[in-house]
């Protein structure tokens, strides 16, 4: 039992705890996977978007740079022919840079530096025009100074080497503008296709810084331009640019080359910046997930608790039902159920049964024989279930206890009623019928306590076709047991004849319903009794009738049927004789006279007379010698009941309790030497009489002995 309880406690919604836990884990894993997947895809999308933004910025910056670069290149290329034309006239040549500056506002400086020795007048000649940043005024200077030594400068050498336009490495111009600059330089060829000079245009890179600053796609991103040699030209955050290493995965780097210049644009974006949003969303999702999981766990716990409570309840219910079943079995075991009930008797035949509903019931019947009297009862406790069952057992115990000392049905019922109404706090009551049938005479004394009147099935000896007369027994209903304390129950009496039957029942029979809710009723109940049966035959007939009527409709109440079939050839009393003796052994001879009288009246044989005299003397002697204390005066009351076929002695004394029927049998086959002196008297009584009964009633010993004659 406990095992099943434990097993069921560990189940939630029909699953084991393990399965439930697995469910929770799967749910959590699914949620988590969804979150991660969402995060990954969002991250990927955001990174893609960041890339696009960065590349778009790069393109924009590149365009802007190219504008300036194109201007500078254009300034040189467009004025190349002028430079070539003025090569031989240095005075005119120095006007060219000035003109370049005037036409191109992006160009902050320009020079045309002659190859050393090209001019006869000036071994070195490099007129230089520069724009004052503050005033915008164009100044004409010369780079042909000894300190500067322009022929060794990168911008002068590289164009000759590459034979084409060349963007110099950025440099800080201390002389001219005090700013970061880069120079586009292009060789100028003379008419003989020899390089005669190098024509340059300088651009300031200060605007680049501003441009870069405005091109940051994310607040913590930084943009940079590096030269061909990897020199940092401009950077919005040079410290971080320097610190950034290619291996740092937390930085996303986007770069694009600037055409012709050898520069590289770079935008570096910290991943944190890009993913800040998605991480924020991810965090929110995670918090919501955790809340969701907590909710799931709480809900599951609540369900599990309820489930366990429910399981416990149903387990308790099962235990309860099991106990009810046991209770029912105990109840049924108290009722005589073995039939034929008295296999050795030919004067009485009984059949009875309770067809119980599933629960314990409140129906009862009982019977037993004491002093050649059949004590019987039937009862129906109000209500159903355990309370009714308890009252039923109490009722039956009371019947047994009370009828053991009382022979009057009214006294039995009254005593039971007094006991039951004394402490009847639950207002339970019992309809009850009690009868005492004298098996020798057929006299039936009965008392009804609010129960259905039994049915008398009278044998009709004149009828050839086994017809019977069926009538409800005339009863005073009185009141059910347990209601009115000290109620004066009325006793009634009839005499049963040979082959009469009495049918007792509870209202479960008459109130049995079929599917159409019709009740079985008394007429249907009495119908099967019109044909003669024995006790079990009547029982089978009524059971069949009820079953055929009810068919499949559920039984709502206990059904109890109880048939008493009286089969004694009634020996009616012819005469009664009475003798009272004192406890004096000298009175014994009176018994002989008493027997003589009886013998004359009954016309007994001499043998029977002597035998009866002997039995009587032995019984009475026993009382005279042993019932009363020595010297005390006592009486022995002898009543002889003479019937057609029997003589019965009822011997009563008020002495000490003594049941002679319990004296052990003596062994009459022993040889004389081994025979004991005592025990002969009782032995003779038993041998002579056909039945010997003892009872102790009202402080009296009552010995009843009967002999068929």
């Amino acid at each position, binding site marked *: 039992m406990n095992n099943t309880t434990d097993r069921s406690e560990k189940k939630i919604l029909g699953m084991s705890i393990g399965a439930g836990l697995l469910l929770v884990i799967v749910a959590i894993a699914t949620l988590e996977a969804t979150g991660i997947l969402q995060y990954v895809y969002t991250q990927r999308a955001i990174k893609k978007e960041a890339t696009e933004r960065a590349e778009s910025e790069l393109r924009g910056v590149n365009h802007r740079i190219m504008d300036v670069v194109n201007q500078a290149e254009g300034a040189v290329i467009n004025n190349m022919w002028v430079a070539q034309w003025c090569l031989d006239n240095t005075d005119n040549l120095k006007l060219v840079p000035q003109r370049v500056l005037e036409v191109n506002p992006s160009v902050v400086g320009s020079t045309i530096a002659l190859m050393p020795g090209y001019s006869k007048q000036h071994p070195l000649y490099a007129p230089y025009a520069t724009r004052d940043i503050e005033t915008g005024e164009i100044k004409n200077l010369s780079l042909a100074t000894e300190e500067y030594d322009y022929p060794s400068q990168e911008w002068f050498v590289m164009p000759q080497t590459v034979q084409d336009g060349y963007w110099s490495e950025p440099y800080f111009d201390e002389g001219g503008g005090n700013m970061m600059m880069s120079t586009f330089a292009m060789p100028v060829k003379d008419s003989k296709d020899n390089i005669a000079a190098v024509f340059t245009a300088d651009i300031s890179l200060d605007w680049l810084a501003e441009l870069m600053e405005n091109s940051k796609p994310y607040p913590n991103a930084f943009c940079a331009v590096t030269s061909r040699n990897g020199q940092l030209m401009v950077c919005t955050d040079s410290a971080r640019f320097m610190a950034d290493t290619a291996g740092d995965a937390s930085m996303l780097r986007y770069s694009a080359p600037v055409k012709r210049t050898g520069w590289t644009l770079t935008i570096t974006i910290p991943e944190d910046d890009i993913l800040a949003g998605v991480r924020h969303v991810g965090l929110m999702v995670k918090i919501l997930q955790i809340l969701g999981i907590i909710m799931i766990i709480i809900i599951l716990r609540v369900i599990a608790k309820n489930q366990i409570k429910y399981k416990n309840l149903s387990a308790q219910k099962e235990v309860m039902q099991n106990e009810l079943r046991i209770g029912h079995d105990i109840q049924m075991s108290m009722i005589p159920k073995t039939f034929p009930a008295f296999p050795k008797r030919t004067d009485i035949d009984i059949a009875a049964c309770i067809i119980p509903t599933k629960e314990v019931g409140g129906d009862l019947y009982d019977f037993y024989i004491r002093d050649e009297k059949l004590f019987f009862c039937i009862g129906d406790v109000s209500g159903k279930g355990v309370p009714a069952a308890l009252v039923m057992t109490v009722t039956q115990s009371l019947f047994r206890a009370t009828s053991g000392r009382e022979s009057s049905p009214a006294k039995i019922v009254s005593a039971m009623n007094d006991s039951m109404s004394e402490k009847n706090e639950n207002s339970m009551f019992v309809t009850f019928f009690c009868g005492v049938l004298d098996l020798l005479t057929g006299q039936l004394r009965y008392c009804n306590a609010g129960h259905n009147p039994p049915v008398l099935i009278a044998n009709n000896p004149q009828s050839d076709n086994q017809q019977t007369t069926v009538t409800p027994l005339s009863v005073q209903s009185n009141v059910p047991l347990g209601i009115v304390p000290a109620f004066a129950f009325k006793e009634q009496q009839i005499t049963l004849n040979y082959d009469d039957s009495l049918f007792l029942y509870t209202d479960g029979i008459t109130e049995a319903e079929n599917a159409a809710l019709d009740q079985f009723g008394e007429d249907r109940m009495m119908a099967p009794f019109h044909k003669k049966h024995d006790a079990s035959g009547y029982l089978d007939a009524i059971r069949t009738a009820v079953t055929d009527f009810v068919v499949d409709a559920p039984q709502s109440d206990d059904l109890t049927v109880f048939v008493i079939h009286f089969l004694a050839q009634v020996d009616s009393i012819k005469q009664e004789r009475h003798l009272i003796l004192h406890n004096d*052994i*000298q009175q*014994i*001879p009176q018994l*002989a006279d008493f027997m003589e009288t009886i013998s004359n009246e009954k016309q007994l044989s*001499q*043998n029977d007379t*002597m*035998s009866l*005299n*002997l039995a009587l*003397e*032995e019984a009475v*002697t026993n009382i005279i010698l042993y019932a009363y204390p020595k010297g005390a005066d006592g009486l022995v009351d002898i009543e002889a009941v003479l019937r057609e076929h029997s003589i019965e002695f009822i011997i009563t004394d008020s002495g000490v309790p003594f049941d002679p029927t319990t004296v052990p049998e003596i062994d*009459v*086959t*022993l*040889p*004389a*030497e081994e*025979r004991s*002196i005592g025990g*002969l*008297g009782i*032995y*003779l009584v038993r*041998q*002579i009489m056909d039945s010997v009964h003892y009872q102790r009633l009202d402080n009296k010993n009552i010995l009843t002995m009967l002999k068929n004659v």
Partner: protein
Amino acid sequence: MNINIDNSNGVTTANLEGRLDTPASTEVAPCFEQLKEAAGGTVVLDCSKLSYISSSGLRLFLALRKETSVKGGKVIVRNISDNIRQVFMMTGFLNMFEIQ
């Protein structure tokens, strides 16, 4: 109840007459004590005039019979009526005595 005891030829004969009921048994108990003295020989209980016997009477018979067992004599019960024979039969006394 009367008992006449006659002693002749070494045989003690008791003639029982009347009803040997309980009070009578008490009455005749001394006679049976007297008979026990002859228990070494043959004791004849003539019951031809005994009309009734109860258990107390039977006990006297039995006591005498036991005495003969001790002393090596025997008890002969003679001329019992059918009624008393029936009682003897019921109580197993028929087998304990020599019935004539």
